[in-house]
């Protein structure tokens, strides 16, 4: 669709679950009736005041929303350009934005009479959030996690087990996030009657990308009024920036600003060791091409024969060879810009945030921050950047220590 024919970027997806050519419902017949049922239930819930009243109550009293919008004064001064705000979703209960979405899906699952919840997880943040909400509601919880990630995110594995979830290390394929998603889908196909699949990002078959986006949009909605409160009525950010694994924290921040043409939107993919033909990165938009995986059409890392490639990133939460279909569409229509940041750049940003702001960020938002470090110095002082600090770094200290050559054994 050419730009000038689009009068709103917020109306998608269409009835086929498409954002332009992206999205859709590429699932086996066994799952199709479930997905249609979920869509109907979600469409109903979306306009049901009781549903949102329950969400709002839990967001406030259980998650701790609204999360602060914080002016990072020392960082701003250090970079010497644009004014930098951080959206502090790392302060949420369970330490990341993931719980915003999990609450919505679990409330829906309960309304649908489902008693068993399954989830996939990469960094473990979505798994922890799902295990948490399941514990709160007394639901059975099974989390699929790539065997490789089980190793590099050990603290989160223990957290999930403490919370009563069963964590299944996935060894099929290469044992990473995409394989965890495959195994979750296999579980769902097998246990269709009592099980709800709580997807952790804006990917999967329709209605997941739209539903997860809607639940995460609380992030951007809060930014709108919080910035107005601090900077004056009607003041919008000039640039919003977020890291992208599947793209849920980014969609959550971006969505409420899609129809504000003055707002620059930048998504930051994981560049791993560099986006080149060694393919040691997870930058689906910058280094991939359109394909079909996990129920939707989107940009994927794949070989010339359409076989899916493994991503590579220091950050387990960004290590996914695809990206949500709405991002693929925003990329093609050029409403949003997508860039990549390497492991080394993210590690530098991680340390800068610790040193200047006293905030230990997760490695995922460290990617977003690294891009802020690149552009802020080139922008005027009245340019406002809002970056999504979507997770805290507790889970990553072992990984970072290893990369910095610090011996964690006491």
């Amino acid at each position: 669709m050419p730009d000038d024919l689009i009068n709103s970027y917020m109306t998608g997806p269409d009835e086929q679950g498409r954002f332009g050519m992206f999205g859709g419902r590429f699932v086996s017949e066994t799952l199709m009736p479930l997905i249609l049922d979920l869509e109907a239930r979600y469409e109903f819930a979306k306009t049901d005041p009781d549903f949102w009243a329950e969400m709002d109550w839990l967001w406030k009293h259980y998650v701790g929303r609204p999360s602060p919008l914080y002016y990072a004064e020392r960082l701003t001064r250090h970079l010497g350009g644009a004014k930098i705000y951080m959206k502090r979703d790392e302060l949420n209960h369970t330490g990341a934005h993931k719980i915003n979405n999990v609450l919505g899906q679990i409330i829906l699952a309960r309304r649908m009479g489902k008693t068993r919840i399954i989830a996939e997880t990469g960094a473990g943040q979505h798994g922890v959030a799902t295990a948490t909400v399941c514990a709160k509601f007394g639901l059975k919880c099974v989390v699929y996690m790539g065997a490789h990630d089980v190793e590099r995110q050990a603290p989160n594995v223990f957290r999930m087990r403490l919370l009563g979830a069963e964590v299944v290390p996935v060894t099929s394929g290469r044992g990473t996030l995409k394989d965890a998603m495959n195994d979750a889908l296999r579980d769902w196909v097998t246990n269709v009657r009592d099980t709800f699949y709580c997807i952790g990002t804006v990917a999967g078959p329709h209605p997941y990308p739209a539903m997860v986006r809607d639940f995460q949009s609380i992030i951007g909605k809060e930014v709108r009024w919080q910035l107005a409160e601090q900077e004056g009525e009607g003041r919008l950010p000039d640039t919003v920036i977020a890291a992208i694994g599947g793209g849920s924290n980014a969609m959550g921040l971006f969505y409420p600003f899609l129809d504000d043409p003055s707002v620059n939107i930048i998504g930051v993919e994981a560049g791993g060791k560099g986006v080149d033909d060694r393919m040691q990165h997870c930058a689906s938009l910058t280094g991939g091409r359109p394909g079909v995986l996990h129920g939707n059409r989107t940009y994927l890392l794949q070989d010339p024969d359409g076989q899916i490639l493994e991503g590579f990133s220091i950050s387990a939460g960004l290590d996914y060879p695809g990206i949500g279909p709405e991002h693929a569409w925003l990329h093609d229509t050029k409403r949003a810009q997508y860039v990549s940041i390497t492991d080394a750049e993210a590690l530098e940003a991680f340390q800068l945030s610790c040193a200047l702001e006293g905030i230990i960020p997760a490695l995922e938002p460290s990617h977003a921050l690294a891009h802020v470090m690149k552009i802020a110095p080139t922008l005027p002082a009245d340019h406002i950047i809002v970056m999504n600090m979507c997770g805290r770094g507790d889970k990553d200290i072992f990984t970072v220590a290893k990369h910095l050559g610090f011996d964690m054994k006491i």
Partner: protein
Amino acid sequence: MTRIDTTFARLRAEGKKAFVAYIMAGDPDVETSLAVMQGMPGAGVDIIELGMPFTDPMADGPTVQLAGQRALEGGQTLAKTLDMVRAFREGDSETPIVMMGYYNPIYSRGVDVFLAEAKAAGIDGLIVVDLPPEEDDELCLPAQAAGLNFIRLATPTTDAKRLPKVLQNTSGFVYYVSITGITGAAAPQPADVAPDVARIKAATDLPVIVGFGITTPDAARGIAGIADGCVVGSAIVKEIGAGKPVAEVLAGIAALAAGAHAA
């Protein structure tokens, strides 16, 4: 009429049920899988289902997953799978071949290019697991237009309301997946499946073939008995995966075929 239609017409005339057998192309290498394929008609296979390997087979259990991995590690590609079909067709112009797999390798090749190549190579039908009727514009309709059957899966979750939609653009036969689950899962009892098969047959004139979980000649006979035939996959793939010689794999297939044909 495709080879699939002709085969069912012949089986009907003979009063026989169809035996459909699945192997993965290129598992563990092209030479072995081609040898198994070439031996299948002689072992009693009426329709060959040839798996196209994919890195992310969401509907498959460990047995077929590993077969796909072996094939991919051996360098199998879509082009090589079509080469295999051409080689097979040099000695067999009658046995129907259905390619089964996932959409991305086809999409990556380009739908029109793929359909032309598949048709020319001697493919008769396609089963693409991740293309439900909601996505018919992608491949199903172009495939039918190109003269290939598009065989749809019906499942226990396909209720009466949805069944017409599933049957609408289906051709060749209907593949009834008898359980909610992945390939290689436990087998259902024929008596439990019979009502579902009857429900589908009441809604279509197409043959209904039942698959998933059949591992023994007895089970093949039982399931074929309540439908127009049965499919065996994982049980055969498992033998290939265990490194059994081709002759032994074919003997196993022959026993399963005899089971189905005794129904």
